[in-house]
């Protein structure tokens, strides 16, 4: 492998790793804010316990999200310096805005939220978690606007004197139609992730409490059943409604995004469908076998008519779609010799994995809402298994989606906009830094080992805290019964300390 390959693997590994943690943060922050709001509004202690319980899981996840995010900010300059020179004038702006608008907000107010229990007035403290929720979503918007420039460059012009892309309209950049579709899609994915996470854990706890209640003494059983009914059941219902809403949002934004891609990045969609040759009303492929990268070696096993035409243009018939080979010929004519095909195997299967994995959350939502209908609390063993099994599926779907959208853009790092400035385009081999391959191998191995070790710690902590459940010392909100001793000289204990 040469420097380019190692650099691509490094960016891929570090980004996928970062984006395992990010969606949970983005989705869970508003969910926790909602739980805390329920506590402040209703005064019911179980909402407080839920806030603390999921808050702990949120913080374990947030730490590693921040840690892996720092690398991303510098990796452009470290490994992709030629790319950074070419697009820095445009690409740097949303990155700097992300720092100024979002990162400061989330990090500062998260500190206030963690340490502010019992110190800030209730409503001010509630506001801090809402600001964290706003911050994490705002950061998603800015970074997706930056990424969307690479997929569909707008708001910029090519300066032949400097040989670089230069920003002409920040407004056009921030309202790029690609960003306007990708941002809600990613946020819906994040809400699906967090909703499934909360519903999965709550579902598991409901079943566990109900089954344990059968084997213990009456007062203990009443407590276990009470927790299942008054705490985990509302948490599960709330998060499953979020899952449903997110699912609907994903389908809609995914459809919008797909139609944009057919128009703006036809090669990506042609390879997602293994559509090798231009055809009118091609069938939608569900399953293929064969060597994908040798286009003609693909055998289409299972196909359905009309779907693809609808996905592409919203019509059932009369839609002509370009194939990979025809686009390749067209690009060679337009941009000179070269291979303009992405890895067809990866794009084909990541697209299907992204869509297929949504089944996990869907099953959990249907089963969970059905089993908790009326005033029921489920105690079926299979439901606790389903609850746990569903949790990883949206994480995998998020990864698959990003792998599809990023690897479908290959060989471009800035894909040419068919209706934009022709010279704003860059292939990945033009964007990579001039390092020796060993230098990049060294950083790749370092990050992979470090991230691998931290992933183990992260998983262990999340699992440990989820299995421990809401803790006893979080049973009562601070300041409810023990008003602070107003004596000077006897300082109050900190409500939280590292």
């Amino acid at each position, binding site marked *: 492998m040469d420097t380019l390959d190692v650099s691509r693997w490094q960016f891929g590994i570090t980004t996928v790793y970062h984006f395992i943690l990010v969606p949970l943060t983005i989705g869970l922050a508003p969910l926790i804010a909602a739980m805390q709001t329920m506590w402040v509004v209703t005064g019911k202690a179980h909402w407080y316990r839920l806030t603390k319980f999921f808050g702990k899981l949120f913080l374990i996840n947030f730490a590693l999200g921040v840690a892996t995010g720092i690398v991303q900010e510098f990796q452009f300059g470290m490994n992709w310096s030629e790319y950074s020179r070419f697009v820095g004038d445009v690409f740097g702006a949303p990155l700097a805005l992300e720092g100024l608008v979002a990162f400061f907000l989330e990090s500062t107010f998260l500190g206030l939220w963690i340490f502010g229990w019992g110190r800030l007035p209730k409503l001010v403290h509630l506001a801090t978690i809402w600001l964290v929720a706003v911050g994490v979503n705002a950061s998603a918007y800015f970074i997706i606007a930056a990424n969307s420039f690479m997929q569909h460059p707008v708001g910029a012009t090519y300066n032949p004197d400097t040989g670089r892309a230069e*920003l002409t309209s920040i407004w056009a950049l921030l309202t790029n139609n690609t960003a306007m579709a990708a941002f809600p899609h990613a946020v819906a994915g994040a809400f699906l992730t967090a909703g499934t996470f909360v519903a999965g854990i709550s579902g598991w706890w409901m079943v566990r409490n109900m089954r344990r209640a059968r084997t213990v003494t009456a007062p203990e059983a009443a407590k276990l059943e009470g927790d299942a009914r008054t705490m985990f059941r509302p948490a599960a219902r709330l998060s499953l409604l979020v899952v449903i809403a997110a699912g609907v949002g994903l389908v809609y934004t995914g459809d919008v995004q797909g139609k944009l891609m057919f128009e703006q990045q036809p090669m990506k969609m042609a390879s997602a469908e293994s559509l090798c040759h231009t055809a009118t009303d091609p069938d939608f492929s569900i399953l293929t076998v064969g060597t994908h990268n040798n286009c003609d070696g693909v055998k289409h096993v299972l196909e359905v008519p009309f779907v693809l035409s609808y996905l592409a243009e919203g019509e059932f018939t009369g839609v002509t779609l370009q194939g990979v080979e025809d686009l390749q010929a067209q690009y060679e004519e337009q941009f000179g010799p070269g291979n303009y095909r992405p890895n067809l195997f990866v794009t084909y299967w990541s697209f299907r994995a992204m869509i297929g994995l949504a089944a996990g959350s869907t099953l959990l939502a249907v089963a969970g809402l059905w089993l908790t209908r009326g005033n029921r609390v489920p105690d079926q063993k299979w439901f606790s298994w389903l609850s746990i099994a569903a949790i990883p599926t949206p994480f995998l779907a998020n990864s698959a989606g990003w792998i599809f959208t990023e690897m479908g853009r290959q060989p471009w790092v800035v894909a040419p906009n068919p209706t934009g400035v022709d010279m704003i385009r860059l292939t990945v081999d033009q964007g990579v830094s001039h390092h020796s391959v060993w230098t990049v191998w060294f950083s790749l191995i370092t990050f992979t080992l470090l991230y691998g070790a931290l992933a183990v710690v992260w998983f262990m902590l999340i699992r440990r805290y989820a299995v421990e459940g809401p803790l006893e010392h979080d049973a009562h909100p601070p300041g409810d019964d023990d008003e602070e001793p107003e004596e000077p000289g006897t300082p109050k*204990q900190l409500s939280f300390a590292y």
Partner: protein
Amino acid sequence: MGLVEVWFILIAVLFTGYFVLEGFDFGVGMLMPVLGRRKDADGDTRRRVVLNTIGPVWDGNEVWLITAGGALFAAFPEWYATLFSGFYLPLLLILVALIVRICAIEYRGKIDDDNWRRRCDWGIVFGSWVPAVLWGVAFANIVRGVDINAEKVVTSSLLDLLNPYALLGGLTTALLFALHGAVFLALKTADEVRVDAVELAAKLALPTVPVAGAFVLWTQLAHGKGWTWILVAAAAAALAGVVALTRAGREGWAFALTSIAVIASVVLLFGSLFPNVMPSTLDAAYSLTVDNASSSPYTLTVMTWAAAFLTPVVLLYQGWTYWVFRQRISTKQIPPSIGLPLGRR
């Protein structure tokens, strides 16, 4: 003054903010084992007092670096690209250290186990020392100049970066941040930890004053300008006053002085650099300057508006956070560990 000069100043402001705020965070992390290694008191409680002085704020402090990086990318893409690809291995080490430190701080209290805490403490110490040294090495090299060829690529090897001037720079930042952290701890703690922090600050000042003085003077003589003598004087005066004020129990003023020393040093580095942003030692014609490394006027204009509106807001709410958590922390205020045991009970 044109927009490129404004942005040079803003980049300097962001890095100054980073070094003032993370300077004491690093110092706190560096000194945690020193102040926590006392036999007469419960060492872990003392380490928690030390760590919790920066508890609610260290994450926000670190964002100054992220934003400085983003602002560098936006305003001076050539500088961003050359700097971070050229200083590849030092930056990699800094990133590894920051990652380890973040996780160590956040995860330390999650498990109630001595070995777990010991490992996290190692992470915090490693994650504080490494950037404290390497940022000094990196910035000294930026000011000194490195081999930059006509393609704007740094061709200096790692060993070239470890020259005497840069190593003195690394030693200076490490000592300065340690002193800054010690004074911050004296300001933010109570009782016995405070007494020890004052003593430690006095001890640290002994090597810091000559080392930092030598580095600042070397910088001034080799790269400085007429007006930067003011900064040399300010840094020297500030450092001289630190010990006396700490001993007199005026930790607030002492902290103001270490902050001034850090600010003066960083401004001296940026002032010596201007109008270059990365001078080349191969040929002055290859040097990156504020003019040939900057973004287009439109980008700079947009970013200026954004910075003009957002920076005061950030300063306001970060300042408020410091106000909310302004009380000193004593060992009596540290609650018992709420971490879970490693295995299930």
